[in-house]
């Protein structure tokens, strides 16, 4: 890998994000149009049919595939493709878009992440029963499998997880586009019904509908769109063995995050992530995922997460704020949209346009992170000001 191939070659010049939630009254078309037209306006794009050369989509529950985006926006006669990479789907769509610009093929392209799981008539994920082994296939069960051994090894507990939920619920109350706007207490989180131990209701993110859009262009053209553009520093994807099969798995970390972070940090030129990053949006599908991610990203030592949680290191006013908009916990998780929604948050924060949840930062770099599957796949994007 040539770590220089991506860094600072591509700029984000416009972004949009629809309100996430149980959008009963909105079709995918409505959400895609809302997010895309916000991005057009943000980028100052007035003639998208002329200015957008290609579209990269990410969705896990698309009903009609790429046509869903092409028809919604009337973007025809150009390449539109769709990617799927577990919960890193949105980040992977962004990655392909970045590649297409960095290699010089296109000047300006659009990334669309969206999903509409709430048309399925069930409140949580599907419980799949394809064969007889690998069951139950429940995300809460999969992601909880590191808990028992991690808790015993490092002395962490459900209370540490509850503090993460409390933090993200708080941050979400300050984000206009979040689904849940409700402060909770540690006691409420601990007393909630158990979904899959150690996860109670408040340890789990909800499912929601949403769409988010990024318009990216080559760095040389960025100034023609706006002055406060944001540069792409790194985009990485890493796959690891299914932890339910991997004979060497230790149940203390999620390997995909560790290996994706190595790639991303090499691209971005990061050697001390805690010092070099200004903030991070990480995949808090479950509170433990966020806890492990602090460590797996190298933001703190293995085992030290609980102390940092207690000290407020990752709070909105902490040294390294994490999930400044409330994360998946308050936005829910329309799978294809989530990665792009996180980049939206980093973009707004770096521009100083995050409203009540604006964090103080040095105008440096911000990271976004998704992990999904059993989990097996991780996507990381790092963006920063010029």
């Amino acid at each position, binding site marked *: 890998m040539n770590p220089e191939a991506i860094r600072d070659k591509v700029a984000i010049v416009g972004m949009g994000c629809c309100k996430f939630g149980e959008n009963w009254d909105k079709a995918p078309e409505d959400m895609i149009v809302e997010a895309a037209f916000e991005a057009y306006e943000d980028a100052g794009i007035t003639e998208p049919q002329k200015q957008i050369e290609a579209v990269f989509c990410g969705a896990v529950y698309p009903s009609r595939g790429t046509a869903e985006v092409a028809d919604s926006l009337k973007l025809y006669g150009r390449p539109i493709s769709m990617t799927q990479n577990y919960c890193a789907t949105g980040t992977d769509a962004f990655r392909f878009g970045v590649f297409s610009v960095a290699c010089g093929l296109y000047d300006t392209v659009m990334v669309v992440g969206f999903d509409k799981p709430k048309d399925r008539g069930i409140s*949580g994920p599907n419980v799949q029963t394809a064969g007889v082994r690998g069951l139950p296939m429940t995300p*809460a069960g999969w992601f909880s499998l590191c808990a028992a051994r991690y808790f015993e090894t490092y002395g962490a507990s459900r209370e540490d997880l509850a503090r993460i939920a409390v933090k993200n619920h708080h941050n979400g109350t300050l984000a206009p586009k979040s689904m849940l706007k409700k402060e909770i207490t540690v006691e409420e989180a601990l007393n909630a019904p158990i979904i*899959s*131990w150690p996860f109670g209701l408040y340890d789990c993110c909800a499912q929601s509908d949403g769409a988010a859009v990024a318009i990216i262009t080559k760095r040389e053209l960025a100034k023609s769109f706006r002055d406060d553009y944001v540069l792409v520093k790194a985009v990485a994807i890493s796959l690891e063995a299914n932890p339910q099969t991997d004979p060497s*798995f230790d149940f203390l970390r999620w390997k995909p995050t560790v290996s994706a972070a190595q790639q991303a940090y090499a691209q971005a030129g990061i050697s001390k992530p805690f010092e070099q990053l200004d903030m991070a949006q990480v995949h808090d599908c479950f509170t433990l995922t966020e806890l492990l991610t602090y460590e797996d990203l190298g933001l703190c030592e293995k085992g030290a997460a609980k102390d940092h949680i207690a000290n407020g290191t990752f709070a909105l006013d902490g040294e390294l704020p994490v999930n400044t908009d409330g994360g998946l916990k308050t936005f829910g998780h329309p799978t294809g949209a989530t990665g792009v929604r996180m980049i939206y948050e980093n973009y707004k924060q770096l521009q100083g346009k995050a409203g009540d949840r604006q964090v103080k930062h040095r105008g440096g770099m911000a990271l976004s992170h998704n992990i999904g599957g059993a989990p097996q796949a991780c996507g990381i994007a790092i963006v920063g000001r010029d």
Partner: protein
Amino acid sequence: MAGIVSFGAYIPMLRLPFAAISGGGRKVASSGGGERAVANFDEDAVTMAVAAATDCLRGIDRASIDGVLFASTSYPYKEKQAASVVAKALDLRRDIATADFGGSLRAGTAALRAALDSVGAGSAKRVLVIASDCRPAAPRSAIERNIGDGAAALLIAGEGVAAEVEGRHTISDELIDVWRLDSDQYVRSWEDRFVVEHGYRDNVVEAVQGLFAKLGRTAKDFTKAALYGPDARSLATAAKALGLDAKTQLQDPLFGKLGNTGAAFAPMLLVAALENAKPGDTLLVASYGDGADAFALRVTDAVKGLTDRRAVRWHLERRAELGDYNTYLKFRNLEPSEFDRRAGAGVSATVHFRDRNEDISFHAQRCRTCGQEQFPFQRVCFGCYTRDDFDEVRLSDRTGKVMSHTFDFFAGSPAPPLIVTMIEADGGARLYLQMTDASATEVKLDLPVEFSFRKVHEYGGTPNYFWKCTPVR
């Protein structure tokens, strides 16, 4: 002479106390504080048969088995053999004879007779006979309290026997006593006093007296009698008619502890007699159902090599109460539910076909290059990346330990939470398995587990089998 080389049994861990049977707007007669064995929601006649046979085959080369005869009145399929599923789960050879015996409570001993015949005729050297029943009874009926779920296994051969079959006699009879049509959800029966007098007692006495006459023996010549009985009192009456002393000669029929295990009842009592037998003991066995089968056995020195069988005693000691009658009804699919466990499309026959060695025989693979064991099968080794260089190894009779676990309330289970574990099997393969016959409070890291063949779900209305883990007890 042909006889029993090895024996084994299986009794489910759960017991339904009679006192728990309640509801339905009917007063249920008190039954003196007894209980019966009930299959867990993931067990049926096939899974119990696999467990009993596993007990029977402890320390025995499975490649030496030439046939499996499976006997049951409650096998889930009307058409599709059970013996072949059991043989596959036991990882036996493909070139063996398999057959199902059903339709009668006498099916267990009918299979035993057939096995003795085939060994005697020389068409097979070692034949496994497994009787297993999990009979459907109407909620709160007398039959529900009478029956128990369980399985017994006997390995029959011509040499090396622990109990030699010295003689047998059989009676066939036509009588309307107990029956179940295709369209019947539960076992039905005629008035019990008629059934006992003209069905059970007449037939058992005639079969046993015929056996006595053949061998020139009387009741006094037997150390123990393992006799089928519809209930304790009727059994005592039959024993008396045969001249047996109920106190010293009768094998405890386990009413109020196990219950009448149907086609597996006489075989179960025989296993109970064998696990307590000494070389030289003589055993009388009689079953009942559309006639009666009687056997005379003489225990040999080889019985001393079978002391590690769990058989009946171990299983009776391992018990947990299912105190809630509604949960029992749920286990048997007798309570309407918002989510029908039998709904949906079920498993793909072609996927099942490709995955049989892993899913039914519970094979992992060991890399011939680096020795890494892995599950499920891979084409490329996790350890050394070598392509297609593996041996298959059987996991079902190994143990393992809990690497991690969760208690899943979301996944859906008749008895939530579902205990979900990551297991490292001895040898190193990692397994994502549900834990059964366990409570959440006993699960901990590194807990030793063994493996148990279970219905992992019933989607599509079929029993879809796979392996689960259960704490080593």
